[in-house]
């Protein structure tokens, strides 16, 4: 690895290519993965089926977080009502037992859905590292089109195979609209 490339690694976030269609992006992602690149990310104005697999991402573990959230809600909801109605403030209502479990189901059910939904939203944001107001890709002049009608593939400088010129040449062969370097 040349001295030049090492210097480039410290200076750049990566090299980014802009495409004008989702199919071109998908094609480029496949080629980049075949060429051995791993530290990369794509940016698109809507989700594209198969793009995550093309980039080599593993399936998300968010479902597990949501399951844990839902189970926590059940435990908290039922526990709350049991503790209040049986232990802390036993109150006889209509001759029903203190532990009248059928009456505790609706609140338990609602709290399960509430905490599972909060887990889904907060979990998704946390795994994605949001909120994150600054990110190097925002330095790319045309990146505002990533939320409009343009599709980007960025190979990051942390990739072991990353070399400023070589990576740039590789991306230029993928029929992009434009290739540019991403300031950190």
């Amino acid at each position, binding site marked *: 690895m040349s001295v030049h490339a090492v210097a480039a690694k410290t200076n750049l976030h990566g090299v980014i290519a802009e495409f004008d269609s989702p199919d071109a992006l998908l094609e480029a992602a496949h080629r980049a993965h075949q060429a051995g690149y791993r530290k990369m990310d*794509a940016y698109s104005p*809507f989700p594209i089926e198969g793009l995550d697999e093309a980039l080599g991402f593993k399936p998300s573990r*968010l479902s597990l977080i949501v399951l844990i959230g839902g189970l926590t809600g059940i435990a908290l909801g039922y526990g709350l009502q049991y503790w209040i109605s049986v232990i802390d403030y036993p*109150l006889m*209502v209509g001759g029903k037992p203190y532990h009248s479990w059928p009456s505790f189901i*609706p609140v338990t059910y609602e709290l399960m*859905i509430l905490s599972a939904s909060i887990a889904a939203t907060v979990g998704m*944001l946390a795994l994605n590292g949001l909120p994150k107001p600054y990110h190097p890709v925002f330095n790319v002049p045309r990146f*505002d089109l990533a939320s409009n009608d343009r599709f980007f593939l960025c190979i990051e400088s942390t990739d072991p195979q990353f070399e400023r010129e070589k990576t740039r040449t590789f991306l230029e062969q993928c029929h992009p609209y434009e290739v540019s370097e991403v300031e950190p």
Partner: protein
Amino acid sequence: MASVARPLSHEQETTAGSVTPLIAPGHTYRSITEKISGVVLSGDVPTGWFVGIAFTLVLLGSLGISATVLLIIGTGIWGINIPVGWGFAIINFVWWIGIGHAGTLISAILHLLNQQWRTSINRFAEAMTLFAVMCAGMFPLLHTGRPWLAAYWLFPYPSTMGVWPQFRSPLIWDVFAVSTYFTVSLLFWYVGLIPDLATMRDRAKSKASQVIYGMAAMGWRGSALHWQRYEVAYLLLAGLSTPLVVSVHSIVSFDFAVSLIPGWHTTIFPPYFVAGAVYAGFAMVLTLGIPMRAMFHLQDFITMRHIDNMAKVMLATGLFVAYGYAIEAFTSLVYTTNPYEHFMMINRMFGPYGWAYWMLVLTNILIPQLLWFRRCRRSIGLLFFISMSINVGMWLERFVIVVVSLHRDFMPGAWGMYIPTIWDFGLFIGTIGFFVFMMLLFVRGLPAISIAEIRHLLFEKKHEEKHHTEEAAA
């Protein structure tokens, strides 16, 4: 299917309804972005919007005055008394919460069923849900008369009195159901908005709007890894909202069904309330969607096919509701041997409030039968009239259930009449003003149609077409 590509004007009648496209032909990702975000960012505001804001501000005044007088004097200013202790407040609560349900049905259930036509209408239907639930929430809180003193028996918090809510009461279940419903609807709506907020951030011209949309978008950059988790989260939220929406109106119906009052104590209430909620909600989506579509020229995305589909859902749920009324009449007149149940139905039909029952049958059952006819489903004016009729009908349904069941129960000595006062009407009209006001602010401040989902829909349509042309070539 070759006819999909045939250009059709959006109002054009076609022989087979299914060929009207979901997006008008000729759109690209960029034109979709520009058209929908332009409603907010372009700065040319239709005059109708200002007229609407001015009018709803007057109604908001009515809300402010009615609520203030109520809090100063108390619930004695309303028409409620014994025997009718539940009047407008509960009628309006159930009416509003029911209206909210269509938003969740469209965004969650139709998403799970992979119905592509939901895409153009889910965003504003969800906004409608939020504002309707806000209106609904005002009524039980104000009905307590002194809401700041009611918190200890509504929410389980360690109060200095050492007492706790009573969890065997459906009224407490209601507190949890409605507050969960509001929170989850808000989360679902916000998660759906994040990619569009990023679009707004990137397209806004002024520094202030860039900062505001930018903060709200939380730095969304459309990363493929983010989209992967986003889609999982969205699907799970849809999956969680679906049982939630059914549970919320079932629990609302328990407020009645768990009691012993004739006309309330019936097992048909949960499904019949849920169907009625969806029915009322779709009527309100049309009531709002028809003027909004015309005012902001969104006919390319809310096409006649969307409107036709909504009319069909209304027809189907309206028939569930009609079945509910029929079973209620059958159970209490023919099936039961209970004289109080029998009397309740006779009184409902021919008592002093009989007019309300027959108006209900007219507006909620008879007029909507026009939806069987394709010509009626495709006539914007008539459809608007039918949806208004259903809005009125669903309100009357709750009036009949709440007031008419209470005013003559077991003991003739305890019978009475319920006459709402000007404060009842003032508060009700005020919440309608609040609802429309919030909707007007929403369409000017946020993209009323999901831009990211419409782009995705266009992507899918392009792929389908490509597939078809390849097949045809082969």
